[in-house]
């Protein structure tokens, strides 16, 4: 089912980056997500950020789990290897891939269910290991692909499209990351590309685990995590039709450089996105923590580069692994040979 509304990428872009590539070289085949899906807007921002970062497309590895969000690696960087794995396990796959070849850039796309529900344990441990990769959560507060159940970022008390209340409090991936010793934490909004692209560029440049939470509304089943207002039934629900997917326009808004903006969500409710104050210091873990807690308490979602620590070695540096990628070591460098085997077995005589 091709989309009706496509992400806002100009049809022809002649401009070239430092590698001589146009933005087309960073695109992929047509999306099959719902028209207006926030994930498609996130993809568009990602394409822009990759192009602006002058990354060779085939030196990037795209990975994902399962979910609407996890489908998106198909829709960009057609000349990069992609790996759409199983639900929740993208982080281990990326960790293993990174273990094998430290020289490529690993870009993982996950959803709020994929990352924070079934894959929560793996996310936490990938943060702790500081695997060098970008881990992007396309956060819509809902399980899109399985049609609208609560995700772990759904707001306490919000209503599902079936009219049930969410009875359990949400997980904030940024606060979680902070408590686990994350080295890069940022949040953006799919509907504000100008704000999101620099965040993604920064994440791509980070030499450790970059966790990016992108508020990425689901226009079919939205009951956004940060929505503090009650959720009106979707059109589909009102009509008592469950397989009707109505085309929507993407949700957009501009996050101001100061203050906050209320972004109305497709199914009702809104998210208050807040810019970071001018004197915000993303390198001070304690003040960042205080800031995030304070705003979470107010039902606001701070956006921008929330935390950064460049001093922590990544998984390989911590382990002292070979500078030459492990998958490129020749067999004779790895196999000790017959004489060594004889010598080694002296201890077993």
């Amino acid at each position, binding site marked *: 089912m091709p989309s009706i509304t496509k992400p806002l990428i100009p049809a022809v872009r002649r401009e070239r980056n430092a590698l001589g590539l146009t933005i087309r070289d960073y695109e992929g085949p047509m999306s099959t997500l719902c028209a207006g899906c926030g994930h498609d807007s996130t993809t568009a921002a990602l394409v822009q950020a990759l192009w602006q970062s002058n990354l060779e497309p085939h*030196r990037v590895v795209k990975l994902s789990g399962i979910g609407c969000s996890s489908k998106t690696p198909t829709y960009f960087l057609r*000349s990069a290897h992609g*790996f759409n794995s199983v639900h929740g396990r993208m982080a281990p796959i990326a960790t293993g*891939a990174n273990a*094998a070849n*430290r020289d490529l850039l690993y870009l993982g796309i996950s959803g709020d269910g994929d990352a924070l529900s079934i894959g929560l344990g793996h996310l936490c441990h990938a943060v702790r290991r500081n695997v060098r990769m970008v881990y992007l959560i396309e956060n819509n507060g809902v399980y899109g692909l399985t049609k609208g159940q609560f995700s772990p970022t759904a707001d306490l008390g919000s209503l599902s499209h079936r009219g049930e209340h969410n009875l359990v409090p949400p997980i904030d991936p940024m606060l979680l990351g902070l408590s686990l010793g994350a080295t890069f934490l940022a949040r953006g909004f799919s509907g504000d590309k100008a704000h999101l692209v620099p965040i993604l560029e920064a994440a791509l440049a980070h030499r450790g685990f970059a966790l990016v939470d992108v508020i990425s509304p689901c226009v079919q089943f939205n009951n956004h995590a940060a929505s503090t207002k009650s959720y009106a039934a979707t059109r589909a629900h009102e009509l008592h039709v469950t397989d009707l997917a109505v085309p929507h326009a993407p949700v957009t808004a501009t996050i101001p450089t100061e203050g906050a903006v209320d972004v109305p969500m497709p199914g009702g409710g809104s998210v208050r996105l807040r810019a970071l104050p001018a004197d915000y210091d993303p390198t001070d873990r304690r003040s960042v923590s205080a800031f995030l807690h304070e705003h979470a308490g107010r039902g606001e979602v701070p956006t921008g580069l929330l935390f950064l620590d460049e001093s922590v070695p*990544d998984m390989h*540096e911590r382990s002292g692994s070979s*500078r030459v990628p492990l998958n490129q070591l020749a067999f004779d460098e790895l196999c000790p040979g017959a004489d060594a085997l004889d010598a080694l077995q002296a201890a077993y005589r």
Partner: protein
Amino acid sequence: MSAWAASIDERPAAPAPPERAPGVNDFSCTIATANGTGSASANALLVRAVFRMGVPVSGKNLLPSNIQGMPTWYEIRVNGDGHTARTGRCHLMAAMNAQTFPQDVAAVAPGGYVLYDATAVPSYRWERDDVGFLGVPLSLLVGEVSEDPRQRVLLRNVAYVGALSALLAVDPTVVAAALSERFAGRPELEQANQRAFELGFDHAESRVDCPLPFHVAPAHGTAGAVLMDGNTSTAIGCLYAGATVAAWYPITPSTSVMDRFGELCARYRRVPDVQPADALGGGPAGAGDLDTPAGQRDNYLIVQAEDELAAIGMVVGANWNGARAFTATSGPGLSLMGELLGLAYYAEIPAVVFDVQRSGPSTGMPTRTQQADLLEAAYASHGDTKHLLLFPADPKECFDFAVVAFDAAERFQTPVLVLSDFDIGMNDWVVPRLQWDDRFQPDRGRVLSRGDLASMERYFRYAPWDDEHVAARTLPGVDPKGAYFTRGSGHDSLGDYTEAPQRYQEVVDRLAAKHAAATGHLPEPLVEHHGGARVGVITLGSADAAVREAVEELAGRGVPVDYLRVRSFPFHAAVADFLRAHDRCIVVEQNRDGQLRSLLVAEAAAAPDRLGSVRCYGGLPVTVPDVVDGILLELGR
């Protein structure tokens, strides 16, 4: 079944085979201790000494799943003919655990002996007059060597090794040499241990008519052999196969695979650092690196994962990216790995898994052995999934098959599961020295280089395929032309998403054909004919030793049977041939449900009505009488 086996394993008794008298280089000795008293290394010392005297020997740990305090037994079998299976008989019991003393005494065969610590069991009322009681005040003796109570416990162990050595004519100079090696560089410890050994030895020798009628006599039966456990040889196999990435989650009895692999890598895979500019960098260089010496780098990476889902995920990710990667686990871990094994099967990604089986279901008996993961492993994951399996029977095969596993996994772009078990993995076996041919080159399978891609118009992941039904893969980062999208969702031969019945089926049918085609690259079954026997016995893995000996014994008792040991799945044609060639075949295996038998019926066209079954699944390595009796029962004799 003998009294000994019955005492620790309450299975109903089967008719006992005629008792064979123990003799020189033909007897069994059991050491009963408590877990956590450090007896394992003393026991291993004794076994090593017998081995070094040139006499085949085996030592089996029958341990509880407990860190400290529960009873544990170590069964030593000395057999000049090289038989290493458990016999269920005990001729000499070193009863070092007061807690189990009565049952240990009851387990000794008539005419046998009990060695006991006369300090610890001063006034036991001997209930048997058909065994000899040999008291040595071990604790008292070692009291002179050390004041430290902890050390005394350890020294008492060495003292019983001394007493046993005197009783069994184990050469004290051989033990002394082994002790020197063990305590090299720690002269005080060495001296204390040598002294404790002498005290035990001298005391026994001066008070008992040594040696006993059955004992060890120097021979030449272990030339060219090593004494090694299967987890160690598995780790060596992975090192030699060129594995660079390992991911795991600790679980008994597989943990020592990774312990050994880590030690081996630290020894053989550390190289001087060179400083080329790395493309993307990885943060501040070496800043957090605590274990790798300064100026060195590791040609490997071992990740202790958060669980087995992550462990197999990392293995799949690393293999997908062109590294040889493996994990080691046991039943519960294998259960968790299911979904990702299915992904690797369907998306055609190599992976190597060592499943060191323990007793299930669920947590089961973690320190007890079984061969009960067969069906789980063969079909791990939902949907039409089938894997390649290898069944090593001893540590030598663990080494050899580790190398085969990586080759087969990469050649066929699919998971290979190596099913060892507690008995193989955690016990020392006498096996031929591991061999390596320096001309060996790994089979990395069909992976396209930049050059290969340059000559191609377009690349598709799953087409074309070769006569083994394998399509070439590409690695990320090599060339934009090689890019493809890996997915566990429905895909066609080009690698594109599909839900079209025929395009979907074309791929899964090819996978089935590929699975079958791999057979020729896996170890063939071992077959032994015994002159026109109409009955065949089939087994696998660690049951081999007991079954082979049982086959010999049956021949001696006028029941000749042919023998086949399967070593891999899918089954070679020779397995079906063997089934067809015999009126009746009996499958001997260590699980309740006859899993190998089921697999033979499902996958080797075995006729169920002609296929008998002997199953030993109490958790202890199968004994020779178990097999003999079981086969006779199946044959109605």
